[in-house]
């Protein structure tokens, strides 16, 4: 069984990082996790996002969950909020699309147009 000692070590490491984290501008990635989203496959998408943000050490990015965004047939839906930019809504998300969105949009600032609601609905 994994030891609680490891958690104590995490706590020690974090002490120095907290100040840094709070200073950064925040990017928010929001995943629709109501019944519709979950049934459509939102859990692996959320998982992939959490893992990618963690692996890439994107300390200014938070991944959060929300309820029904209101367009159930387009679930899984992921919304990206970057300060001073318009909200971007990705629809019919899959874990495969996550690396591209992280690379181009979250890190590069350029939305992946082909996965957005504008492109899919057009």
């Amino acid at each position, binding site marked *: *069984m994994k030891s609680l000692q490891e958690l104590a070590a*995490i706590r020690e490491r974090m002490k120095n990082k907290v100040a840094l984290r709070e200073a950064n501008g925040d990017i928010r990635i929001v995943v629709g996790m*109501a019944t519709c989203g979950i*049934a459509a496959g939102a859990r692996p998408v959320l998982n992939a996002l959490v893992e990618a943000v963690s692996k890439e050490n994107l300390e200014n990015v938070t991944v959060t969950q929300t*309820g029904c965004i209101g367009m159930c047939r387009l679930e899984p839906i992921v919304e990206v909020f970057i300060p001073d930019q318009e909200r971007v809504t990705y629809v019919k998300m899959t874990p495969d699309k996550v690396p591209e969105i992280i690379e181009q949009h979250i890190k590069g600032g350029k939305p992946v147009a082909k996965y957005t609601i504008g492109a899919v609905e057009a």
Partner: protein
Amino acid sequence: MKELSLNILDVAKNSVKAEATLIGIELIETETTLLLRIRDNGYGMEPDFLTRVLDPFSTTRTTRKVGLGLPLLKLAAEQTGGTLSIASVPKSASPDACGTTVEAFFHTDHMDFTPIGDIVSTVVLLIQGNPDIDFRFVHTMPDKEVELDTRDLRAVLGDEVPLNDFAVLNWITESLREQYGS
């Protein structure tokens, strides 16, 4: 839902919405049965809402007038010959002992039993999305038991480190997978 763990993720969110501070998720398996119990200390349901709660056309959501979380879990249980029951004490009746317990019973040897699936992801993502709520997860199987209580974690982590910190989530994932032996 393709996996029972997805129903669990979905239904546990009702407890979050009921402002629970502690949510228990218990899975008790025998060779041929499974009892799922989701218990919270949230504000509970008034008797009249409790009678309607399994009706798909009753919901607390505001985007539309349909709520399928509990009806889908009920379906999953009943299609194995099992049952679903809900007990609730509303805050108005008892502010100190309020809460809701959902129990679903499954015959796991029935061909229409939905596999539990990736329960580790469900637990981890519940914690990820609700770091201020405590979760107690216990999965009892004929040959082993898997357990996680976020109160134990919080006691070690203190106030500085939130439960949804990536390092902590990784620890939780690894701890659960290790206990499952996968």
